[in-house]
C-alpha cells in the first residue's frame, strides 16, 4: 500500500486536533474536578455535589426544564416537518426554516426582552382585551418559551430528513390495506421516522441543559440550569473544581442521552 504514507500525512493535522481539542480537554475537565478552590487534590467536590441537596435539586430542575423544552419543540416541529414534506416548493420553505438559525441567538433572546417587557408587544396585545400588564420576563414560562423558540428549527430539520427518507409506498400500502389515517400514522409513519425524531431530541435536549445566557437574560437568574452553574463557577466564583464536577455530570448526562436516542444499527436494513 503506497498510499499509507500520504494517509499518515493527512492524519497529522487532524490527529493533532483530535488529541489537543477533543481528548485533552475532556481529560482536563475530569482532572480538574478533583481539585478544590485552593488547588488541593480532593474528592470533596463530588461529595458536595451529592450531599448538599441544592446541586441534586438543580440537576433535576435542569433536566425537567430540558424535558419540557424538548417536548414543546417536538409537538410543534413534528407536524411542521410532516406538512413540509407534502408542501409545494418545500426547498424554499426549508430555507425559510433555516434562516432564523443564522440570526445570532443573542439577538433573538434580546428581541424577547423587548416583546415580553412591561410595555412590550405581548402586554400591548393583552391590553387590548383589558388584561392588566402581566410579568412575563424573568419567569419560568418565558424561559421555556424562548428556549423552545430557539430550538424549533433544530428539531424540524432532522425530523424533516427522516420523513423525506420514508418510502411513500409504505404509506400507500397501509392505506390500501384499509388502515385509517390515524392508524397509518401511528403504525407506519411514526415508527419509520423515529430515527429523525431521536436525532432531533438529541439536538435539542443536550443544548437545553446548558443554555446559561437565556437563564441570565430571560430567566432573570430564577432558572438555574447545569450550564448556568458551570458558568457561575468558572467565570464568577472562580471555583473551577466545582464547575468541572458539574461539567462531568453534564458530560455523563450527554452520553446517557446519546445512548438512549442512539441509532441502533439494524442489520440488513431495507434495500
Amino acid at each position, binding site marked *: 500500500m503506497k498510499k499509507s504514507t500520504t494517509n499518515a500525512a493527512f492524519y497529522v493535522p487532524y490527529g493533532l486536533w483530535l488529541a489537543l481539542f477533543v481528548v485533552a480537554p475532556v481529560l482536563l475537565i475530569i482532572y480538574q474536578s478533583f481539585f478544590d478552590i485552593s488547588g488541593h487534590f480532593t474528592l470533596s467536590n463530588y461529595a458536595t455535589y451529592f450531599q448538599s441537596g441544592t446541586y441534586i435539586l438543580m440537576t433535576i430542575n435542569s433536566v425537567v426544564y430540558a424535558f419540557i423544552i424538548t417536548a414543546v419543540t417536538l409537538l410543534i416541529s413534528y407536524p411542521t416537518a410532516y406538512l413540509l414534506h407534502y408542501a409545494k416548493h418545500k426547498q424554499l420553505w426549508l430555507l425559510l426554516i433555516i434562516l*432564523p438559525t443564522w440570526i445570532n441567538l443573542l439577538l433573538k433572546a434580546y428581541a424577547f426582552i423587548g*416583546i415580553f*417587557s412591561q410595555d412590550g408587544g405581548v402586554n400591548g396585545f393583552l391590553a387590548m382585551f383589558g388584561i392588566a400588564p402581566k410579568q412575563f420576563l424573568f419567569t419560568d414560562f418565558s424561559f421555556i418559551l424562548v428556549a423552545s423558540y430557539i430550538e424549533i428549527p433544530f428539531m424540524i430539520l432532522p425530523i424533516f430528513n427522516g420523513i423525506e427518507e420514508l418510502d411513500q409506498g409504505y404509506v400507500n400500502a397501509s392505506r390500501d390495506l384499509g388502515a385509517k389515517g390515524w392508524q397509518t400514522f401511528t403504525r407506519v409513519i411514526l415508527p419509520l421516522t423515529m430515527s429523525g425524531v431521536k436525532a432531533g431530541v438529541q439536538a435539542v435536549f443536550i443544548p437545553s441543559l*446548558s443554555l446559561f445566557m437565556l437563564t441570565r437574560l430571560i430567566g432573570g437568574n430564577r432558572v438555574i440550569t447545569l450550564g448556568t452553574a458551570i458558568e457561575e463557577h468558572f467565570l464568577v466564583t472562580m471555583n473551577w473544581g466545582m464547575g468541572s464536577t458539574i461539567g462531568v455530570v453534564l458530560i455523563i448526562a450527554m452520553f446517557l442521552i446519546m445512548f438512549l436516542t442512539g441509532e441502533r444499527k439494524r442489520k440488513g436494513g431495507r434495500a
Partner: protein
Amino acid sequence: MKKWKWSNLYLIFVFILLYVPIFYLVGYSFSAGDSMSNFHGFTWQHYLDLFADTRMIQIVVDTLLLALLSSLIATIVGTMGALAIHRTSRPVIKNTVLSMNNILMVSPDVIIGASFLIFFTALKVPLGFLSVLLSHIAFSIPIVVLMVLPKLKEMRQSMLDAARDLGSTTTQVLTHIIMPFITPGILSGFFMAFTYSLDDFAVTFFVTGNGFQTLAVEIYARARQGISLEINALSGVMFIFALLLVIGYYFIQQGAQTRKAKHKGGETL
C-alpha cells in the same frame, strides 16, 4: 385535497411564530423612541448611530475576520481529516475516529468553553484573539469532516483506478480527480464552519479575555444593561447579511444538485 388549506395554515402559523421576534426586532430599529415599545415614528437615526459607533464597527470587523480565518483553517484541516478517515480501511479505527469526531458536535457549548478554558490556562496560552481563534477552529472541524465525507463516499473507486491506470501520480489523482469531485462538500463545510463561528456565543464567552470581543459577547453585555435600539439596527443589518448568506448557500447546494443530475444523466443511470 380538502385538508390542503388547513395544513398550509399550520405551516404559515409556524412561520409567523418563527419570524415575529425577528421582525419585531428589526421593526423597532426604525422607531424614533428609545425602547422596544410604542412605535414612535420612522427614523434612520439608530442606523446612523450604529455606523458612527467605531467600537461596534471594529467588533463587527473582528468577528467577520475571525469567522473567515477560523472557517478557512477548519476547512483545510477538516478536509484532510475526511480524506484520512475515508482511506482508513480498518472499521474499528474508522468508527472510533468518527465517534471522536462527533464529540464536539454534541457537546454542550459550556462544556467546550469550560474545558478549553482549562486547556488554554494549562498551556499558558493568553486569553484573547488567539484562544478564541483556536477554539473556533476546533469546534468547526467536525462539521467540515461531516460535510466532506459523504462526497468522498459517493466517489467511485473505478474513477481513481482509471486515473492510476492511465499513469497519474497520487498527487495528480488528489488534485485532478478527488478535489474537484468533493468541492461542493468542502464549500458546504466552509459555509457551515463560517456560520458556526458567527453564531457562537458561549465558547467565546469562556475563552476570551478582556482584550478581544466578538459581536455575540458584546450584544450579551449590552443586553444585560437594557435595551438600546442601536442593537436593533445592528440586527437589521445582520438579518440582511444572513439572508445573503442563506441565498449563497442555497445556490451552492443547487449547483451541487444540478451537477449531480448531469453526472447521473451522463451515466444513463
